[in-house]
C-alpha cells in the first residue's frame, strides 16, 4: 500500500492569508478543542484538531473536499480553552473561504426562502448568527422582487431565521413550523395518562450519555421533542402545545454563552420573560411553562429537571381551560 503523500505548503499560505486564518500554524495538536467540541459528541467524524493539523500539513484535497470543514458552528466553546488562544472557528471560516474559491459548497440542508411569501422585512438577516442572509432583488413572476436570500455556504441550519419570521417565509427542511407542531402535538388531544408534560430540548445541551438516553426514552406522561436550537422555539409553539393537550411545557437550552449557534439561547431567554408575563396576564398559570439552561458542567441534571417539572405539573393537575 503506497502511503506517500504530497504536502502542499501553498494551502497553508492561502489559509493564513484569509482573515481569521493567521494562527493556523500555532496549533500544536493538544486536543483540548476536540475534547470540548459539542459537534463531535454527535458526529465523531468531526475533529477540529485533526482538521487544523491536516490543513497545516497542506493536505489540500482532503481538507477542501471534506464535509467536516462545514460543520463547525462557531459556538466558540473551544476558544476560551485553547492554550494557544487560537480562534478556531475563524480558522474554519478561512478554510471554507479557500474551499469556496476552489468551487466547493456546503453539503446538506440549509434554510430556504419562499420568495412569494417574503415581505423583505429583514428580520431573518438581523437574527441570523452567521450573517448568511441578505435582502436581494430576485426574479419572481417576470419582475424582480426584493426578498431574503440565504448563502448556503454560511448557513448552519439552526432555524433561528424561521423563529423570527412573522410571515412563515423561511424555513429549514425537517424543522419547519408544521413539522415541529406535528411532533409537539402528534396525537392532537392527549391520549395516555394526564397530565402530560412536554419537553422541548435543543440538540446540544445534553452533555452526558445518560441525559441523551433519558431524552430518547422519557418516562410515561412526558414527551420530548428535539429542535436544533432553543432559539428555534417561538412562543407560539408553547401556547399551541398547551392549547392542544400538554399540561406543562419545559424548554431546555444551553447556558449563558454556550449556545451552539452563538446567540440562539439569548434570543430565547428574552422570549422566556415575555412568554411568562403573557401567560400571567391571560391567567394561564405561568408555572406551567418553564425555561431551563444547561451547561457543560451540568451533566446528569436533565432527568432531575424533567422529573421535577413532571411532579410540579402533576401537582397542578390537568389544564382546566382547554376546550
Amino acid at each position, binding site marked *: 500500500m503506497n502511503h506517500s503523500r504530497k504536502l502542499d505548503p501553498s494551502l497553508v499560505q492561502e489559509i493564513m492569508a484569509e482573515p481569521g486564518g493567521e494562527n493556523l500554524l500555532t496549533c*500544536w495538536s493538544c*486536543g483540548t478543542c476536540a475534547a470540548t467540541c459539542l459537534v463531535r459528541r454527535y458526529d465523531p467524524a468531526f475533529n477540529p484538531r485533526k482538521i487544523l493539523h491536516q490543513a497545516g500539513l497542506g493536505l489540500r484535497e482532503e481538507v477542501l473536499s471534506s464535509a467536516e470543514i462545514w460543520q463547525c458552528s462557531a459556538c466558540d466553546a473551544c476558544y476560551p480553552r485553547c*492554550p494557544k488562544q487560537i480562534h478556531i472557528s475563524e480558522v474554519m471560516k478561512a478554510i471554507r473561504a479557500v474551499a469556496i474559491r476552489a468551487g466547493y459548497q456546503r453539503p446538506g440542508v440549509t434554510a430556504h426562502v419562499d420568495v412569494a411569501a417574503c415581505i423583505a422585512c429583514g428580520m431573518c438577516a438581523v437574527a441570523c448568527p452567521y450573517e448568511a442572509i441578505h435582502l436581494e432583488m430576485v426574479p419572481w413572476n417576470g419582475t424582480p422582487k426584493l426578498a431574503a436570500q440565504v448563502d448556503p455556504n454560511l448557513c448552519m441550519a439552526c432555524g433561528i431565521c424561521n423563529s423570527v419570521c412573522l410571515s412563515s417565509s423561511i424555513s429549514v427542511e425537517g424543522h419547519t413550523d408544521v413539522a415541529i407542531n406535528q411532533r409537539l402535538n402528534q396525537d392532537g388531544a392527549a391520549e395516555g395518562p394526564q397530565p402530560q408534560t412536554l419537553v422541548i430540548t435543543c440538540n446540544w445541551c445534553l452533555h452526558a450519555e445518560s441525559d441523551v438516553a433519558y431524552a430518547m426514552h422519557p418516562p410515561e406522561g412526558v414527551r420530548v421533542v428535539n429542535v436544533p436550537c432553543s432559539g428555534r422555539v417561538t412562543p407560539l409553539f408553547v401556547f399551541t402545545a398547551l392549547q392542544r393537550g400538554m399540561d406543562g411545557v419545559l424548554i431546555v437550552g444551553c447556558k449563558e454563552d454556550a449556545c451552539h449557534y452563538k446567540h440562539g439561547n439569548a434570543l430565547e431567554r428574552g422570549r422566556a420573560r415575555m412568554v411568562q408575563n403573557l401567560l400571567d396576564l391571560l391567567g394561564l398559570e405561568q408555572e406551567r411553562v418553564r425555561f431551563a439552561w444547561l451547561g457543560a458542567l451540568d451533566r446528569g441534571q436533565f432527568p432531575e429537571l424533567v422529573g421535577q417539572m413532571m411532579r410540579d405539573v402533576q401537582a397542578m393537575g390537568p389544564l382546566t381551560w382547554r376546550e
Partner: protein
Amino acid sequence: MVDAARHPKVEVMAYTEVDRVDGYIGNFRVQVTKKPRYVLEDRCNGCGACAKVCPIEVPNDFELGIAPRKAIDVPHGQAVPLIYAIDMDHCIHCYKCVTACGKLDAIDFSQEPETVDLDVGAIIVATGFESFDPSVIPEYGYGRYLNVITAMELERLANSAGPTVGRLIRPSDGQTPHSMAIIQCVGSRDSRYNEYCSGFCCMYAIKNALLLKQTYPEMDITIFYMDIRTPAKGYEEFYNRARHAGIRFIQGRPAQITEDPETHNLFVEAEDQALGQVLELEFEMVTLSAAAIPRKDAEQLASTLTLSRSPGGFFMEYHPKLRPVDAPTDGVFLAGAAQGPKDIPASVAQGSAAAARAARVLSAETWEIEPIVAHVWPDRCISAQGKKCGICATACPYGAITVVQGQAAYVTPAKCHGCGGCVAECPHDAITQDHFTDAQVVAQLRELLRENPEEKILAFMCHWCSYGGADNAGTSHFEYPATSRGIRVMCSARMDQDFILEAFRRGAGMVLVSGCHPQDCHYISGQQVAAKRFERVPRTLERLGINPERFRVEWISAAEGEKYARVITEMDAKLASLDKAQLRAENERARPEITKRLRRWATVPHMAELLEMELKEEVKV
C-alpha cells in the same frame, strides 16, 4: 542546610528581609530587618514544648493548608535554624508557652524588629519560585471539587513526614483512591496564563506516579500530557521505567473535569490522539501539575536590587548562553528557580556556578570594569543649580546614577555599563561617555560627509547587534551598494537626536539608525529609550522641511546580515529616486534652523570647533 548553618564562615539570618541595597560590586551595603520571633535565638533549643501547649491552630503554609500549625511553631521538623517563632497575627497572649518553656525562658514578647547593616562584596539571589493556583481555570474544578489537588499537595500527602504520615487519602472521604489522573501543563505552555514550559513537571509527575505505584501497586494511574519532556541524563530511562510499571500515558490535553456529586469521583474528558477518540474516564482523584511561577514579591526584590525580569517574570540573566548566572548588575548573581523554572540538579549546578562567580569577586583586590563609563560635568548639570531633573537616572538601566536636587548628578562608575543612554537623553549635554564622546562622533560625521554628502547614507549602528549585523553581511558576502557610511556606538540609546540633525546639517542624503531588537538589547532597556526618541524624529524633520523618508529606523540583530544588506539596498534605491537638486535645496533650507538648534551643543568641550560654529557668549543652560 544543617551543614550550611554550622559552617564557621556562613551566617544564616532566617526570618529576615532585605530592605535596601546600595553600593556596587565589591562594596554593597545591604540593610536588612530581622523580624521579631519573640523567641530568643540563643536560648531556644527547639524542644517544641511551647507548641505542644499552644491552644491556637492556624493553617500551615508549608503543608499548603492541609495541616495546622500552632501560633508558636517552626515551619516543619527539619527547619534550619530549629528555632520557634510566634505568629503575632494569631497569638492570643495566653502565655502558656512561657510556662511550658520554663527554666529555658526563651520567650520574649518584648522583641522588636532589628535593623542590621551588612557590608558585602557580592550578592546571590536564590529566592526560588511559587506554584500557579489552578482555581483560575474553571474547567478543571480546582477549589470546587474536593478530590482535585495540585502536585505540591500530592507531595505533602504522599510524604511520610507530611500531614497524613504518607498515606494518600482523598479529601472527600479520607479513603485511599483506587485510581488517579495526573494532568500536565496546568497553567504552563498556555497563552492565557504562562507561555513557558515549567520544565520539571514531567519528571515529578513520573516520580509521583512511580512512588504511588510503589506504595499502592494496585492503584490505576494515568498521566494526561501534551509532550513528555525528559531531556537530561537518565530521564528518558526513568520515563521508560514508568511505562513498564503500568502507568498509563494518554497524549491529549483534558478539556474539562466534572464531578459525580455523590461519590465525588471525577470524570476527565480528553482526546486520546493516538486513538483519535475522545475518552471520558472516571478517577477517584486528580492531580494537576501546576506551573512554576515567579514569587509574588519578585517585583519588589527586582526593584531593590535593580534586577530585570525576563518575559515569564523570572529574574533576567546577563546573557542566556554566555553569562547565565550573572545578573545584569555587576556583583549580583542568580541561582536556581528564581532565574527560571528548573529541577534540582540544574538548581544545584547553578548554585555552584553562582558561588564560583561570587568567589571571583570576593577573592579579588580590585575589579576591572570597562573604561567606557559615563561621567557628569557638574558645572553643566542643572540639578546642581537646584533645579529638578533626573532624566539621566531614568534612562539608566542599571540604577547607576544618583540625583539629589541641589547637587550634580553622579554616575557610579562601577555600576555604569557604558550604554550611553544618559548622555543622549540629557537635555543640557551635561554628561559625556569616555571613548564615545559627542565630539568623537561628530568628528567622524564631519569626515564621512566631507565629500558628496547627498550621495551617502549615514548609518548609526549599535556595537552588539546592528554593527554585528553589518559585519555579518560582509563575511557572508551579501552584496549591497557602497553608499553607506557607518558610525558605531555601544547602544542605540547613545544615538542622540542631535547626531541625526548634524548629519543632515552636513548634507547627508539619508540617515539610518539601527540597533538591537527590543528583547535583545545588551543594556536591557537601552533600545526602548532609543525607540521612543526616534519616534519623535520624523516630525522634527518635517518641521525643518526635510523629507522624513530620508530617515529610517531598523532593528537588526547580529545574525541578520541579509537584513542589513537589504535595508541599505532599499535606502540606496530610495535615495537614487529622490531629486538631487531638491535634496540639496532641502538641506540648504534646513541648515540655518538646525544650526540654531545645535547652538547649545557648541558649548560642550571641543564641540564648537568641530561644529564649525562660533561660540556665542550668551548661551546659558
